[in-house]
């Protein structure tokens, strides 16, 4: 299911040459996720930590009567966990809905496929799996994240 969606979004890029990207911030870095995959953005959420959970799990988020598992982008990148409120993006994965905790959600921008470049070969292996490539913006780089790669169940396989 998710694979087909991903394929179609990739083809959408090649066909039209542009992609709408929602930018998110974690630490000092700027990341992007395809806006079409984002179901909802929950601002300033209290995230309930789960004892004994793998490090990349930020905790539980309340989303429309459901309790979602949220992945912490900071933890994935090896940054220290931030206390207090976080912005959470909601995605749909194989195993149902899940959240991505980020420091802040930025604006939605349109990027052109001409500016796209694949991951550099020097990137760490675990980041290679996480990042889907980079858009060269004026003055900065926008690293793309693939929701299919940071879904909790996918991470469980990769991170063990």
């Amino acid at each position, binding site marked *: 299911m998710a694979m087909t969606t991903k394929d179609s979004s990739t083809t959408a890029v090649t066909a039209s040459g542009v992609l709408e990207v929602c930018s998110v911030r974690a630490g000092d870095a700027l990341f992007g996720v395809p806006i079409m995959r984002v179901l909802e953005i929950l601002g300033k959420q209290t995230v309930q*930590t789960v004892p004994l959970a793998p490090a990349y*799990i930020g905790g539980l988020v309340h989303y429309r*009567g459901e309790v979602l598992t949220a992945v912490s982008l900071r933890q994935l990148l090896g940054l220290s966990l931030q*206390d207090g409120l976080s912005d959470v993006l909601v995605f749909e994965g194989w*195993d149902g809905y*899940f959240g991505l905790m980020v420091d802040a959600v930025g604006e939605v921008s349109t990027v052109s496929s001409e500016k796209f470049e694949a991951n550099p070969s020097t990137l760490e292996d675990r980041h290679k799996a996480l990042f889907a490539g980079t858009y060269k913006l004026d003055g900065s780089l926008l690293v793309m994240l693939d929701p299919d790669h940071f879904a*909790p169940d996918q991470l*469980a396989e990769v991170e063990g």
Partner: protein
Amino acid sequence: MQASRVILLKFLIIFPDNLSVDDLTREFLIESQEGLDRMERCLTELEDRPDDRELIADIFRSVHTIKGTTGFLGFVRLEKLAHAGENLLGLLRDGRLRATQEIISGLLALLDGLRSILDSIESDGNEGGGGDDAMIERLVVLQQTEPSNTSVQASPPQKRKKSTRKSRAKQPPAQAAETTAALAVLQSLETTIDLPANGAQDSASGGTAARSATADSTLRVDIDLLNRMMNLVGELVLTRNQILQATATDAGFALLSRRLDMVTADLRESVMKARMQPVSHVFAKFPRMVRDLSQMLNKRVVLEMEGQETELDKGLLEAIKDPLTHSVRNAIDHGIEMPEVREQSGKSPEGTLRLRAYQEGSHVLIEVSDDGGGMPVERIRDKAIERKLISREKAAQLSERELMQLIFLPGFSTAEAITNVSGRGVGMDVVRTNVEKIGGKVEIESRPGKGTTLRLRIPLTLAIIPALIVRCKSNSSSGCLQQSFALPQGALHELVHLSADEASTAIEWIENAALYRLRGKLLPLVFLDSLLGHGEGTPAHAGRSGETYIAVLNADGRHYGLVVDGLADPEEIVVKPLSSVLKQIALFSGATVLGNGEMALILDPGAIAARAGIRLAEETEDVEERRELTTGTSDEYLLIEVGVEQAALPLSDVLRIERLPRSKMERLRGRPVLRFEGTLLPVEDSAGLANGDVDGEMTVVVCRDGERHVGIAVTQVLDVAAGSTLAEAGTEAFAAGVTLLKERVTGVVNLARVPALPPMELLPSQFPEQEFAEAWQ
């Protein structure tokens, strides 16, 4: 032909695309299944009242409706079979045949035939292969079992038989020819049964009219939609809670918020109610099953059903279907004896199987009881040893009640040979697993020669469970935070509170194992914070500071205390599933959103016990605990010490144990009384315990005596134990007021003898109204 073309045309106009046709088929399937269920019920009733025209007409309508619709949808095989049944039923309805045992069996077989075709349509969209000729033949033969007089109508059945025979003879075994042959039969039948068919039309339309009245007031709703509604209501409840908090200070909003509050509560209740179904949906198939089974086993069984209107969540109802079927099957196969055996032991040759459903608090209880031979304890033990489920030494130590529990072990069966009724060793363990999966419990009671009762205790709804919210310190990087967890009430036995001073001394240690003396027995303790990986680095017994609570839990027979830092109110929580990653932690059974909007993980008491290794250390306790549990609620006692004497209180009457400062004890006209949240409690204090040191504390056991509550002042509470009755020497009568507790004769406190409060009219009449009211607050 003309007519069918018109129908076809209409069909095309109304249902232009395939999707609608699928919808139509599904609708047809649901309706037919319901019709067949009704038919099954009526047929088993018909056995007792073979001349009941109403019943026959009802059965006829069911079959007729199926036949009518199948022709429309083009299910030839189904139509053919239904048609054959209709012919036979037509004769019954017109009184030209009598509903004999043979005919009813034939009709039941027809029912199964129809059902299997419907199943096939449901699973792969077509009627499936296989012929029904044998079945049709059987029905045709049945039509002649009692040919009626010499009336004109007598000929059609014979003619029909001939034509069927002929077409059968013509028909080669190959499947290809079957369709044409079937059509030929169909046509030949059509010509012969014109008359009854017309009659059928009339009665059928009458039936539709009667039914449409109820149909108008009900509506079929997709279960997914209901689930979605349930989720939305949950969301609404949480939003409401937040609104209530946000608007608490604004007077203008207060009224609106309150209204929102009320509407939300009502809505939630209505949606939950919409998911409820009466247990008769499950019970309905048992008359047939009991009939078939008892005939097969040559037993005579009467089925009694009670409380069919008791309602249960649809999901749960589905979940108990199989366990209940197993239980009924067991009761007939193993429980009820053969008629000769019953007569020898002075019982009626007819065995009674009782199905009873009733609600008790937040649970629905379903009992399957038989008046058979009871469970042969010796045989159960021998079989369990033979199948290596238990060692001989261990078995010798078990009491009868414990031995009975062995039937719930996987792989247990006492059947000598494997029959198709039972004996495959998958039975009671499946019953227990399935019931426990939905948060229920299975209890068994059996008396030799008198019978066996199996009791399934099912929670009212699956999604909402009562839970106690406990708090646990968690040292996150920002300092000490309290995190809430939900502890299901089902496993919770009692709570022990330790004040800050007590906590350091009351918990004792053997190496790294913490223990607490609970009424003289050592209870292993599990610290929630260290279990969850908090407070690492500091050894747990380096001393606990602050108030501590011990939740005494019993999970799958494992008895232990869970130490937590704080308690919040009990709450009805909506269980939400966890993602697979979090399920792997295996300590939490789900998550929930609390009333204050906070999220809480639901603790799994069984998994915690397993993680803490409770089982191995507590094997003996485990057995003892189970014995105490199964000894029944009626003869369990709270052993108390009053002054120098010991006495027993029936545990079922004990509400709670209060420890309070002696100064709280007041006197009303010389009688000690206690005030509790606006209620007055008369206290029986035979040992004068209230007269001690005013600054000291005393213990009062609050008991129930009928409608009223009374308190018993005690020196201390000793234990909970199972008592057994004693017969007075030389008589059969049980000695009243005493019981054998822990091998000691102990007097039972007669709660009814605790004097009531002084009656109102005895109070001085000049008692000012104000004060009077206060005295009675």
